[in-house]
């Protein structure tokens, strides 16, 4: 770890037009190279927090910096450049279903490859080669020409990881990346995200609700409740007793889905 701050969130609030307050003066710092797990019930603001970092959601107040550059006030080309540095992985994979796996990976390059050619699905040779390399990394190089929706859920999420890698990002924002997968497949996907963190040195912010996964992969945990940071610390500190404390007495932790 170099000690550089990759993501700095300062006093960020988000109120949606329907009046829901999703984030309430959230502040946190993520050092370069960290694997930060964001924990919380659905509706606690995890997705909003992650989406504020690449401005898929516009925060109502506060500032967010990505490697010292203000994301919240960036517009146009500057915003697109910052988005290019933060790759996002989604719970529902969000692939372009009717396009091939390879094209889907290539869309990760759209931040740097512009122009008419890219709109006609024609990408430079070196980008195509890199896309194939990314697919190989997630073990799907043999499925490059399949249609994306022909793949299983776990495979689709691996394509999404390859798309993130294609972006050549410095930060990965993973929003519940394994929540819609079979429990048996979760580790296979999580291990690829872990590899992004360990082998590529990418900073990962990953929202999760499964305590086992948190303790297994994260280096640090932040817990959100009703849009506020209610706890922060190493994964080992998140015992079941503490979780009861965070989520209230109504929560049960006998099954792993309880925090869903």
């Amino acid at each position, binding site marked *: 770890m170099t000690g550089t701050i990759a993501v700095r969130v300062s006093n960020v609030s988000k109120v949606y037009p329907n009046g829901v307050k999703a984030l309430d003066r959230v502040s946190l710092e993520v050092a370069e190279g960290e694997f930060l797990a964001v924990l919380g019930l659905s509706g606690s603001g995890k997705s909003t927090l992650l989406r504020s970092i690449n401005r898929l959601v516009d925060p109502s107040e506060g500032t967010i910096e990505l490697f010292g550059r203000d994301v919240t006030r960036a517009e146009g080309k500057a915003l697109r450049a910052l988005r290019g540095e933060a790759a*996002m992985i989604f719970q529902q994979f969000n692939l372009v279903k009717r396009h091939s796996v390879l094209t889907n990976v290539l869309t990760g390059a759209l931040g740097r490859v512009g122009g008419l050619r890219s709109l006609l699905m024609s990408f430079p040779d070196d980008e195509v080669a890199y896309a194939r390399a990314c697919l190989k990394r997630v073990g799907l190089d043999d499925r490059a020409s399949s249609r994306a929706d022909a793949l299983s859920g776990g495979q689709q999420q691996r394509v999404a990881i390859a798309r993130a890698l294609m972006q050549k990002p410095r930060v990965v924002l993973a929003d519940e990346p394994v929540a819609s997968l079979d429990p048996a497949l979760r580790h296979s996907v999580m291990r690829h995200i872990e590899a992004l963190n360990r082998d590529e040195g990418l900073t990962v912010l990953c929202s999760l609700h499964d305590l086992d996964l948190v303790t297994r992969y994260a280096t640090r945990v932040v817990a959100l409740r009703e849009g506020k940071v209610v706890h922060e610390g190493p994964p080992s500190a998140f015992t079941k007793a503490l979780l009861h404390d965070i989520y209230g007495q109504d929560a049960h932790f006998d099954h792993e889905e309880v925090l869903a």
Partner: protein
Amino acid sequence: MKRCLREGGDVKPVARLTQRLTARGTALLVDALLVASVLLMAQFLWLCLFVPVAGTPLPSARDVLERLSYGALSGVAVLLAAAWQLWDRSPGTAFAAPRGHSAPGKPWDETFSGFFLLIFVELTFFTGWLVTEVDLHQLFTNFHKAEGILRGLLHPSGAVLFEGLILLLQTIYLAFMATAFAIPIAFVMSFMAARNLTRKTAKARFLYVFVRSVMNFARAVEPLVWALVFISWVGIGPFAGVLALFIHSVASLVKLYSEQIESIDPGPMEAITGTGASLLAVLRYGIVPQIVPPFLSYTIYRWDINVRMSTIIGFVGGGGIGYILKPRVDLGEWGEVGTLVLLIAVTVWALDVISARVRERIV
């Protein structure tokens, strides 16, 4: 406009006040219209049924409509509507409430509003019967007067068969060209008319309202009227018909296309935006792949509709088979009319079957 306010003006008190005033105004307007209609319809029925005009057994609907007290009853209706809103939950209040905010309460048939709406619908039906001068006696006793026409239609003459076939070809091409010209323009405009893409900035919201309004206007004007406009512009003939159907097709396709864009899965769009892609790339990869099949389906359907419409367009001089149909109707040559009608019917039927089949295969 109301929706813009609701979505744009989140917590600002001024926006909230405007919003409430708009809702209140809409509610009052709706209630006043409802009450005024009920009062006027009651007066209409009263005049028709109980106040005979000297000399005629039943006065014509138009005469009675001219005698209604529009001003006075509208005034009374506004007062009653205002009183209603203070007293109880009125239909207008329910109409103006934001979506998802309808108050749960008693079943409709136990409320005064429900009773009122029932009366409203019943009055509308009886009034409508008299306004449109429904006459079952004529319908069931005068069949023989139309017998000649029907017989002619059922005994088509071969005299116009060749000419009809040629002009039928022209009709099909006419409809095709109108559709082809409309596709690219409607495609581009539909993105500007899609709610989900035009929420963020004030400029985008204006664009949405502007494009939607222009399109609604273009669609509200009958193709027949557009045909008359273009006939004086480019002269009688199929090109005027192409232009008339083109305008109408753009307007309809923008509506259908943009509704399709509004119902896409926003996920891929989010993902492509997140890569730092340009707006065009987001549209190209995040939206277009999702809308191509339904767009094709709508476009084929539109061509199908255009073939049907071009018959009527031809009546006023817009080319195609309708052009030779009109004089034969005027001269009462029912056999030849029968031939032409049959040709149109077969074409429309065939196109309908083919387009349904193709659309099934695409989606």
